[in-house]
């Protein structure tokens, strides 16, 4: 019974929101707007539940002295300090922004720098493990785009640069067409996933 009620609620709300996108009726638009606002509020509550889960997982790791527990201690201390400062001083206060600008941004920037190295190594690894036509086209296109985008000490290669160059030709025709094809596939898959939920075939809710 409980499951039937949750399915009925999901289908009813889903149908109303979907119709609100396509049918221009003031009542439908109002209902869609209200439901989406409720969804945003619930997502914010879910965020808090998720943060409690994050804290609990690391707390348990420290209590059981599992592998990597010293890092969990750092997470817990940082978590506590950040929550206290942001709750006490406010999210846009000087100290809150100090944490953001001097701790979070530098750490994330260093991860971006690391990403470049990882991608270069991954490409070499891919060439060794999976050398086929798709890999060659992929690496060739990536190198062409890099060469075409990077400044070559002010040198412009006539075949590569410019509005009729190879880079523009590949990016505007081959890459754009390929990307649109992939996006069509993704869009069809997303609609199919939504429709399966609307007919109650998929139920990622209610246990």
């Amino acid at each position, binding site marked *: 019974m409980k499951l039937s009620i949750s399915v009925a609620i999901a289908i009813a709300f889903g149908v109303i929101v979907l119709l609100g996108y396509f049918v221009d009726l003031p009542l439908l638009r109002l209902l869609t707007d209200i439901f989406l606002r409720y969804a945003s509020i619930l997502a914010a509550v879910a*965020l808090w539940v998720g943060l409690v889960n994050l804290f609990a*997982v690391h707390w348990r790791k420290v209590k059981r002295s599992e592998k990597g527990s010293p890092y969990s201690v750092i997470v817990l201390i940082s978590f506590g300090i950040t929550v206290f400062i942001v709750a006490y001083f406010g999210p846009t206060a000087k100290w809150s922004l100090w944490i953001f600008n001097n701790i979070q941004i530098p750490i994330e920037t260093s991860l971006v720098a690391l990403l470049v190295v990882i991608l270069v190594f991954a490409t070499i690894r891919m060439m060794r493990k999976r050398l086929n036509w798709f890999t060659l086209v992929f690496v060739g296109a990536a190198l062409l785009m890099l060469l075409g985008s990077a400044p070559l000490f002010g040198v412009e290669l006539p075949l590569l640069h410019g509005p009729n160059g190879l880079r523009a030709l590949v990016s505007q025709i081959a890459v754009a067409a390929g990307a649109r094809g992939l996006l069509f596939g993704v869009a069809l898959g997303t609609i199919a996933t939504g429709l399966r939920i609307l007919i109650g075939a*998929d139920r990622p809710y209610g246990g």
Partner: protein
Amino acid sequence: MNFTALFSVGVLGLVFVLVFLGLIVLFVVYERSHQGRPLRPIPAFDRIRREIGLAVEAGKRLHITLGRGGITGQEAGSALIGLQVLERIARTASISDKPPVATSGDGSLAILSQDTSRAVLRTTSGESQVDPSSGRLVGLTPYAYAAGTLPVILDEQVAATILAGHFGSEVALITDAAERNGSLTLAGSDNLSAQAVIFATADEPLIGEELYAAGAYLNAGPAHQASLRAQDILRWVLVGAILAGAALKLIGLL
């Protein structure tokens, strides 16, 4: 003829969705009464089925990471597919000592992943108690999410990492950790940048709509096979519409 009014986005969109829905329902009925056409082989799904068996035998864990997209935005589709994959894998690996662990970068997804694990436990072993760490929120920004996922891969005896959801280029940090750990990576995303990175870094990349076929390949039910067939038909309809539109534009009718 007023083509603009006839093909207004609202009307055309609603018709498209209704046709899609009709095709899915039609194919569900057909799949139930007939033995459906076999699906084209996708090596990634064969490999993950084999890997689940090996992980259960070796007493290792499977890790599913659901990305950092929410369930209310455009990226919800891939996240919901991730939950579907989690459900199928948790069910298949339910006899294992180490149940699969799910990580995500969104609060709602963390709750839903725990809910999915609980539902599988309830139907397979009659227990409703679920380990709270089986569905974890690991970080809220893209790089915090990637960094939070790494200890799960490196410290928790993970045999395979399945990435299904919304990611950005930070996905490379996760696949690289799995590679260094010697575990299999199967990955798919709705984001094109992430798909490019996944193609270069994952053992088994799922490109384009292949991620959305996961339910059909992991035997999640006739609705999944039916929606796959409906997608195939509508893809050809779209190709025809694009070509017809280009031809009409060329002769000056549009």
